[in-house]
């Protein structure tokens, strides 16, 4: 997720303390902003998560990301059947305070998009890892998943990113 309006240094200042809302058991809790990071998911430096199950990988933005963005008011998603490329934008999330590009953590074909987000973009805030998922992708090079961070690494990454500002 590339914050277009509020670059990471600025966005860092937007950190909101909010208790974790995920229903799944959190693996780690960021000490400073209490964002939830889940076990079993892979994470990109641009704050998207991937959950790889069988032939399909589900993609969304992390609790940390939604926390920085604030209330999401609009989500722009690609169409099913299109393709996404690792590190390239596939959509955008608009919040009251910022516009953010969403990058795909992996390459592949989009097999499904979460159409509920059109009517209820706030699902990204209330349930970033479940109801707020964005797209499902059939990975074209599953090995790309190896290069992503695990939950421990991502937690550390967020802490370092916050501390750097």
């Amino acid at each position, binding site marked *: 997720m590339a914050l277009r309006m509020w670059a990471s240094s600025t966005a860092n200042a937007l950190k909101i303390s909010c208790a974790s809302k995920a229903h799944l058991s959190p693996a780690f809790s960021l000490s400073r902003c209490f964002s939830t990071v889940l076990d079993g998911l892979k994470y990109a430096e641009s704050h998207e998560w991937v959950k790889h199950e069988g032939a399909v990988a589900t993609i969304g933005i992390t609790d940390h990301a939604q926390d920085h963005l*604030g209330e999401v008011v609009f989500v722009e998603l690609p169409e099913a059947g299109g393709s996404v490329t690792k590190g390239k934008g596939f959509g955008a999330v*608009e919040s009251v305070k910022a516009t953010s590009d969403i990058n795909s953590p992996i390459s592949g074909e989009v097999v499904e998009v979460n159409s509920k987000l059109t009517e209820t973009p706030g699902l990204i805030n209330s349930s970033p890892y479940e109801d707020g998922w964005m797209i499902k992708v059939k990975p074209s090079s599953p090995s790309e998943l190896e290069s992503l961070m695990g939950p421990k690494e991502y937690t550390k990454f967020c802490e370092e990113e916050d501390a750097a500002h």
Partner: protein
Amino acid sequence: MRGSLWQLGQSITRRLAQTDKKAVTRRYFASEADLKKTVLYDFHVAHGGKMVPFAGWSMPIQYKDSIMESTINCRENGSLFDVSHMCGLSLKGKDSVPFLEKLVIADVAGLAPGTGTLTVFTNEKGGAIDDSVITKVKDDHLYIVVNAGCRDKDLAHIEEHMKAFKAKGGDVSWHIHDERSLLALQGPLAAPVLQHLTKDDLSKLYFGEFRILDINGSICFLTRTGYTGEDGFEISVPSENAVDLAKAILEKSEGKVRLTGLGARDSLRLEAGLCLYGNDMEQHTTPVEAGLTWAIGKRRRADGGFLGAEVILKQLAEGPPVRRVGFISSGPPPRSHSEIQDEKGNNIGEITSGGFSPCLKKNIAMGYVKSGQHKVGTKHKILVRGKAYEGVITKMPFVPTKYYKPS
């Protein structure tokens, strides 16, 4: 709030996209140490303020409440903003009025003592150097508040003209109120809460009026004005009393007036259809184009006598080439620099501010379109990330203003 909220983020992002991220972080971080702090800085941090760089100051973008919550609470209850980054100054001397009239479009001479107005400082081409609220305290004392982001250029501009004016024997001098802090108290609870802290009868002080009075034990400059569209006040308080006053206001409101940051301030002013200098008004924008013709005093329209008057008076007679308009749009919220097209796809202008309205729950924006394309109800296209969405020209303010005026 002034300087440019969205542009700030955009310029940083542009740099991030172009250069090594770490190098940018270091450079950015170094400048952060140079940021100025208002006397309320520690107070903001203690109340959960998320501090961001803004026009050379470290200011709260929001506190614990979200921007959506803060915006709505301002209209339902009230908001307290620290706007001490803005620059207050007084012009004194018997020729203060004719001096200021050379620089602004307002009929300063026609203002009754104790009243003020929004005005524009113009350049030789009729463009806006800044927008500003000016008050005639007395015939020989004018009080002016200019944007933080424009402080240096405004002061240089005023100083240059003041030197020339004094050289010709004019009696005017200035005092920059760096010894004071500025709080904005806005919303329906502003007056009842502030009334607890002063013996003066605030029901007799109407929109645009000014008074010097005792508030919470210190001598304040009180202007019934604001930047939200709500009833409210801007309170210039001696800096040593600013934190106490902020605490007293919050306490007297029993928690209903909330500290509010620049984020909600931007949403509020956009809903109220008010310009943000640097976004909606720039050096090349005339007051006529910006829809501020009403602020050009009647006498000034006839006589001119301010910088760029020829250009402005000509626009008044012939109509301006472009006009500021409001939009309500579908799709993602338009942001500044989104292109505006007519139905056929021809470029007719650009959005200068836009976002999601927390109160209306839809996208609102303002921008400039060619004259003739500016009629309320006209449907245009607004381009966001290459896709065209419908935008309908809508009368501003988007949310009705609630200024306290004599009935």
